[in-house]
């Protein structure tokens, strides 16, 4: 597969959707400024009872799961050597780059004493037994790795004269030769921190309903991250395919479908099996808030499972719906286990404030804007019809 198969889409960058997204970004910037000038209480409803709010849950816990496209595809393409999926690699990677980088940005907004964050990197302050510490370091490392993995896209686009002047050909050759190291890291690191995002919840104890609280949280988080990673690749490719009339990759997805279906089946079996083993099945059908949320999650996971194993998987429309349902299910699972099914007790309640939500929305808008900018100016998408080598 030649690398020139990736090519920039071209076209105008500043379009109407771009400007609308930009407007939301400006609103978010205003509230972010307020957060740094007047403190967290000015814009956010987070409290001592709910120290984890929408910024962490939507931008980091769910945002990085959406960013797992790069991880999921790298696992498939490089580790299991399924090279046919290679055309999907770069767009997935780009999603990962922004998903994670902006999760890092969101954390900096969320940290009360963000100016102390550099202490994470000082080994003498390290607390290696802390799950959060592991997540922080691992995510930082992964962001770096993602940018390195994506770096060839920049290099291919640079004018030869510029490359010559700064001797970048050498860098390009180096990256090409040793990319497997970064790809390896890029697969290893997400397994560590995506499972750790589940481990973080292990200290919740009785604050979290038994429907979510289980010792399998780390594995469930890892599996759901992988499934969401594939889901986001399907979604992204379909949307880009629709919007920019690039060649369809539906045939690729039909084969990917079995992988995702297997993951989903495993996830659901583990979840329900564990629930039955611990004797909490009754809670799922109790008809209350927690039980219903749990059932909605299950339905959202079952829809893609059935679509992907049936003949409907060949339909782009059904594939798209499956991806949406899968991502909604994964997001709801994370939202529930971090926020909606959490009861800190003592009378605490939480609902995000409008400014808090606007910041999260702004971060997502920024992500979409950057994605649009990059695919138009950098060789990210696969331009050729022929995807087989």
């Amino acid at each position: 597969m030649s690398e020139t198969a990736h090519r920039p889409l071209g076209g105008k960058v500043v379009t109407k959707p771009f400007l609308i997204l930009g407007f939301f970004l400006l609103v978010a910037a205003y509230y972010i400024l307020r957060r740094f000038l007047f403190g967290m209480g000015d814009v956010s409803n987070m409290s001592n009872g709910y120290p984890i709010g929408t910024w962490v849950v939507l931008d980091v816990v769910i945002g990085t799961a959406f960013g797992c496209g790069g991880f999921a595809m790298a696992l498939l393409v490089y580790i299991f050597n399924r090279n046919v999926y290679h055309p999907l690699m770069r767009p997935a990677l780009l999603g990962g780059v922004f998903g994670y980088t902006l999760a890092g940005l969101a954390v900096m907004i969320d940290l009360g004493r963000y100016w102390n964050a550099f202490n994470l990197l000082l080994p003498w302050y390290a607390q290696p037994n802390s799950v959060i510490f592991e997540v922080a370091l691992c995510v930082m490392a992964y962001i770096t790795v993602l940018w390195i993995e994506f770096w060839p896209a920049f290099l291919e686009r640079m004018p030869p004269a510029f490359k010559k002047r700064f001797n970048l050909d050498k860098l390009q050759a180096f990256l090409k030769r040793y990319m497997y190291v970064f790809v390896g890291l890029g697969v290893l690191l997400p397994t560590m921190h995506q499972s750790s995002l589940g481990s973080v919840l292990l200290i919740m104890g009785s604050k979290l309903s038994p429907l979510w609280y289980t010792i399998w949280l780390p594995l469930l988080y890892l599996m759901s991250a992988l499934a969401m990673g594939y889901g986001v690749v399907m979604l992204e490719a379909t949307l880009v395919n629709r919007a920019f009339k690039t060649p369809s990759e539906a045939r690729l997805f039909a084969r990917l479908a079995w992988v995702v279906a297997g993951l989903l089946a495993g996830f659901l079996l583990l979840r329900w099996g564990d629930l039955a083993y611990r004797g909490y099945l009754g809670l799922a059908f109790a008809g209350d808030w927690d039980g219903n949320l749990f059932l909605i999650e299950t339905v959202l996971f079952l829809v893609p499972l059935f679509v992907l194993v049936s003949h409907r998987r060949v339909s782009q429309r059904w594939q798209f719906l499956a991806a949406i349902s899968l991502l909604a299910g994964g997001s709801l699972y994370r939202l529930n286990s971090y926020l909606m099914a959490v009861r800190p007790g003592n009378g605490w309640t939480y609902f995000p404030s409008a400014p808090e939500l606007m910041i999260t929305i702004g971060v997502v808008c920024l992500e979409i804007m950057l994605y649009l900018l990059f695919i138009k100016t950098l060789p990210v998408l696969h331009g050729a019809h022929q995807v087989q080598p």
Partner: protein
Amino acid sequence: MNVVSDTDLDRAVQNPDGYEGSLGGLTRRQFLTYCTGVAATLGLSSLMGSRIAAAATAATRPPVIWLSAQECTGCTESLLRAYHPTLETLILDMISLDYHEALCAGAGHQAEAYKAKSMKENRGKYILVVDGSIPTKDGGVYCMVAGKPILETVREAAEGAAAMIAIGSCASWGGIPSSDPNPTEARSVHEVLPGKTVINIPGCPPNPYNFLSTVLYLLTFGKPPALDVQNRPKFAYGRLIHENCERRPHFDAGRFALEYGDFGHRQGWCLYKLGCKGPETHANCPAIGFGDVGEGNWPVGIGHPCFGCTEQGVGFTKPLHALAKVKTFTPPTAFPTVNAPKGKGVSPAAAAVVAGVAGLGVGAVAMALHGMDKKDGPAASDHDTPQQ
């Protein structure tokens, strides 16, 4: 610890110079428990207990020369009140205390001659302990022992010492005698022994276990424990009193005793505003207490502000009532009220944002689905015919 009568001891200890004798009437279990306790005090692994036991029961007990300069014998008095081990266990069974003005059996020329003999025989092997500050004015004539300025005696003894310990604030940094106007130009031991490492155990008096633990560390490992910049063992002086003080929660919550005997003082509130120097004084007083009568038995525990005896420039220097310079975090100026709101509920704006995003999402999905299969459907199906 069980009381051991003499007859018990005779029965139990067949050979006073052998293994049982070196245990001084303790059972093996009691002795190992003690050694493990010392290891814990030092923050070492519990496995170190057996190594300490081996060092403490070595065939030749390491000689110790204890010199007293301008001092009040408070350090020795403090040491006499140690119970695990008792001082006699230490000086009779673990070390060989060859010279100590207050404790040695001999007196006058006899004691001096024995000191000279021990120092000669054990040159390079003995531990030198000094309590009290060293006067340096007029050639050190303000503290004469056996017709010689203590300054000279200390310098002579330091020549052949394997390790040197300065016990008490006076020996560690000058203490009371060095306070203004310092008429005798009193100096600490390390100041009169330039270029030599002196382990400082400051305190007025220091907790005996800080001293005993340091000695046992020296015997076990043959080197001093980890020291801070002022050569104080880190295991005992690594943290501020403030960090482990049992009254710390009152400090953080802003509850201060304002004068002796007021409501806050009777309630056991923080003594910072009475001049407690805990926030700028490094010592383990809150952690191990004094006199083996349980925790809480230390100045702050009984309602008196810490006066900073282990810290040069604080103890005997700063006025008792002066506020300490807080070296960790200062308390906040405002504290949360007890009826603070526990969540703000759903604001109309937030609900509108959530509804807007949800609507946008549904709309976007519908728009994306619109005509999706019409155009690409047949093509996709064509592509999708199995190729394997």
